[in-house]
């Protein structure tokens, strides 16, 4: 019940004061930690970027256009701005501007980082963004699979395994027939695996996290075994050829946007379309309403005659098909299967689900952040920045950790997630 009546400026000021006074210790600690984070970033700028080799870096934007950035002055600017922000953040907080300032500071830091890495050389900005979108694609597909499961109340830790199974199946079947049939087979195999997860979780109430891990290990073990025993000995069974990029006529010639968005493989278009379709389905259709009801309050749905368990079976199975499709992305990208080719991306997809707040559009945004990290790490490896390659490979996981730790807490998770539903 509203008690104060904030119609007068005086009241507003009073309420504002109460607000600042009533910040919980938790909020205060977070604000302080953020301030420390700013100082650390400023320190990095000062210790590393300012001592870069000083050349101007040229960012190309596709075609002939480019921007030149002087590394050293930019590094100084970055260090000073971040240190100032850190000071303000710790001494009095940045209140409502906190998120906006954080975003701006992050962008400044990344630009400085890129300028430092590319000092004296050329850096294709559009190319990197193109690669970021490409790298984000399997994450988006994995995350949509996760969202389909978790919105209906089933935890799916097995996305990694489902992706890997999809990659293997599409390589094997795709080599024996053709890649398109391989993709369909991948969807079928992962759908069956996902159904097994649903069956164990729903029918036998096995802990969903444990089933998920079991599936991950099972798929990793089996595909590695088959890879070394079957594929290596029969190379004709492991070579599908890749799927080429398809330039969307007309749209691909738009400056900057064209080369980033419209010179991609059909996976990118399919993933973007799936984001739109899933969003529409989840929030605008009968199916979506029932799915969300089953994930939030299965008893409420059950008492209205909605078949909770069937809904969960169906959703988890569809999710498996989506993950299988996502897994075939690797095959289509490199034209073959390698042991553990997904390399933990399924777990990043899980983080993407959480950071994206179980919303397909949110997941797309989060996936782009990770995709960008991936693409940047790759670029840095090529630019020979002196950062050890092992560290660059770790970068996406490190960013996952950072982002999940800072935004994962406030996310709304479906209320009945992971809880078995019992019918008498």
């Amino acid at each position, binding site marked *: *019940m509203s*008690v104060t009546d904030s119609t007068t400026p005086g009241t507003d000021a009073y309420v504002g004061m109460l607000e600042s006074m009533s910040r919980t210790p938790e909020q205060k600690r977070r604000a302080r930690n953020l301030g420390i984070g700013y100082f650390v970033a400023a320190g990095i700028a000062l210790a590393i970027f300012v001592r870069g080799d000083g050349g101007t870096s040229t960012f190309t934007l596709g075609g002939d256009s480019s921007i030149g950035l002087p590394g050293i002055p930019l590094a100084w600017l970055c260090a000073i701005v971040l240190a100032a922000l850190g000071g303000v953040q710790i001494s009095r907080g940045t209140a409502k501007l906190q998120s906006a300032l954080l975003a701006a500071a992050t962008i400044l830091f990344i630009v400085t980082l890129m300028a430092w890495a590319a000092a004296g050389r050329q850096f294709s900005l559009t190319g990197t963004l193109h690669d970021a979108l490409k790298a984000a694609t399997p994450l988006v597909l994995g995350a949509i699979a996760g969202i389909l499961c978790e919105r209906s109340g089933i935890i799916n830790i097995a996305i990694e395994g489902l992706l890997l199974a999809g990659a293997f199946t599409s390589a094997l079947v795709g080599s024996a027939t053709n890649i398109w049939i391989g993709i369909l087979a991948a969807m079928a195999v992962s759908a069956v695996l996902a159904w097994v997860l649903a069956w164990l979780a729903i029918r036998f109430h096995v802990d969903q996290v444990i089933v998920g891990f079991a599936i991950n290990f099972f798929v990793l073990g089996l595909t590695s075994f088959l890879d070394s025993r079957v594929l290596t000995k029969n190379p004709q069974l492991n070579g599908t050829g890749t799927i080429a990029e398809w330039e969307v006529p007309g749209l691909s010639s738009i400056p900057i946007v064209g080369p980033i968005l419209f010179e991609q493989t059909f996976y990118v278009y399919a993933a973007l379309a799936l984001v739109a379709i899933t969003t529409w389905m989840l929030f*605008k259709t*009968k199916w979506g*309403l029932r799915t969300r009801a089953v994930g939030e309050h299965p*008893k*409420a*749905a059950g008492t*209205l005659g909605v078949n909770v368990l069937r809904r969960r079976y169906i959703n988890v199975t569809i999710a498996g098909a989506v993950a299988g499709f996502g897994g075939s992305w690797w095959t289509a990208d490199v034209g073959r299967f390698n042991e553990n080719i997904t390399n933990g991306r399924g777990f990043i997809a899980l983080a993407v689900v959480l950071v994206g707040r179980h919303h397909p559009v949110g997941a797309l945004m989060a996936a782009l952040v990770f995709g960008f990290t991936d693409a940047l790490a790759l670029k840095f490896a090529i630019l020979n920045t002196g950062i050890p390659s092992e560290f660059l490979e770790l970068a996406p996981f490190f960013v996952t950790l950072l982002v999940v730790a800072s935004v994962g807490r406030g996310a709304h998770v479906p209320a009945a997630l992971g809880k078995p539903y019992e019918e*008498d």
Partner: protein
Amino acid sequence: MELELRGITKRFPGVIANDDVNLTIKTGEVLALVGENGAGKSTLMNIMYGLYHADEGQIFVDGNPVTFETSGDAIAAGIGMVHQHFMLVPVFTVAENVVLGVEPTTGLLGKLDTAEANAQVRDISGQYGLHLDPEALIESLPVGIQQRVEILKVLFRDAEIVVFDEPTAVLTPQEIEEFFNIVESLKASGRGIVFITHKLTEALKVADRISVLRRGKTVGEADPAEIDEIGLAELMVGRPVQLVVDKAPSQPGEPILSVDQIHAVDSSGRTLVDHVSFDVHAGEIVGVAGVQGNGQTELVEALTGLRDVITGSIHLGSEDITHATPRDVHRAGVAHIPEDRQRAGLVGDFSVAENMVLTRYHDDGFSTGIKMDWPKARAVAADLVEQYDVRTPSIQTAAGNLSGGNQQKVIVARELSRDLELVIASQPTRGVDVGSIEYIHSQVVKARDEGAAVLVVSTELDEVMALSDRVIVMFRGRIVANLRRDETEHNDIGLYMAGAKEQPVKTDAETTS
């Protein structure tokens, strides 16, 4: 339509929840179903609604045998149910909750016709005077309104027989009146109503017929015109029940709890508790009256360390507990019976025994070092189950499987069975049967007589009036009255609760002397 339950038996591990029960429900009448906690009322209704399946027995609709595999079947047969614990999706709108399962759609892809759903909800809401906004989010609505959404769900499905499982337990007196009006209009429209309640006056007031269950069996039918509250209580419990609280005049001692100018706000800065000050003395019961949502919940949270106050102080004796943690508060000798037992008082998946020692597993000799002394905990739990007459198959049963009232008894038993300085009891008898109310009230009075200070918060004005030596009324986060019980009338308190009246500022000393 006539619905008949014949020879229904339902067993759960260790209990027979329904034992050869017969019940007939006709359209156009209100049947009240009463019985002790755990008597099997909810179970019986869940069977009738297709949620549980009877082990024996048969349901007949207009003389024809029927089987309800799921509640979908029961709904199709014209049965609707408003559950004891609401079945609403908190993050959905009113209309979304109402149409779930029978959604109006357009097109082949099953696009929800939100406009149509909203219009239909508005329509029925207007027809029965429910005043519901179809687009409001459930989680933003007070319980009284949420209940109307439940009613609307039933009406939307065209139910001819509507079951209400303890609908009034969570309502304010005002909302209860409105609820009775709705029941009347449902009856007038030719529907049959089953009304489960522990408040016998309500049963006597609205029912055409009363059925009594005891320990799973039908023990009798009563005609509300021919039986009174005392008779009904005796039929229900099987022994005479004392309906008024029996207590000696209070002998207040030193102040135990001193609250001075505390102020609490929510995360968006709105005031919840507005500079509240009062004392509770040893050996007195102070009742906090007020319509739900006027800061009582938050006041209790502040006192028990669950919510931080931004100004003011709270003292327990000479100890400052303003910023103490819940465990510190508890250690200092404060018992807390929380208002929402499902959320705050119990761990549903834990056994009764584990719940009994939940707040003190770390001391009182229940553990040595890192090892729990389970035999001791179990012995104490068994004792408390006995003393407080908790109806449970065993102390190893999961607390979540107990009937609503018995869950409450577990909490009361745990909280009151210690050496106490202060007892804070929120809605201590919500959903509890008359026999157990008698017992819980006597325990609260006993705690007072042993020298504890007692703070009782209840939206049930009768309960506040029956127990208290002094009454505080809260309105919009403020204390608008602080009165001695023996100088106060029911009606007077009602005016304070509605905000129509305010007491001139007095010091505590004057009110308690």
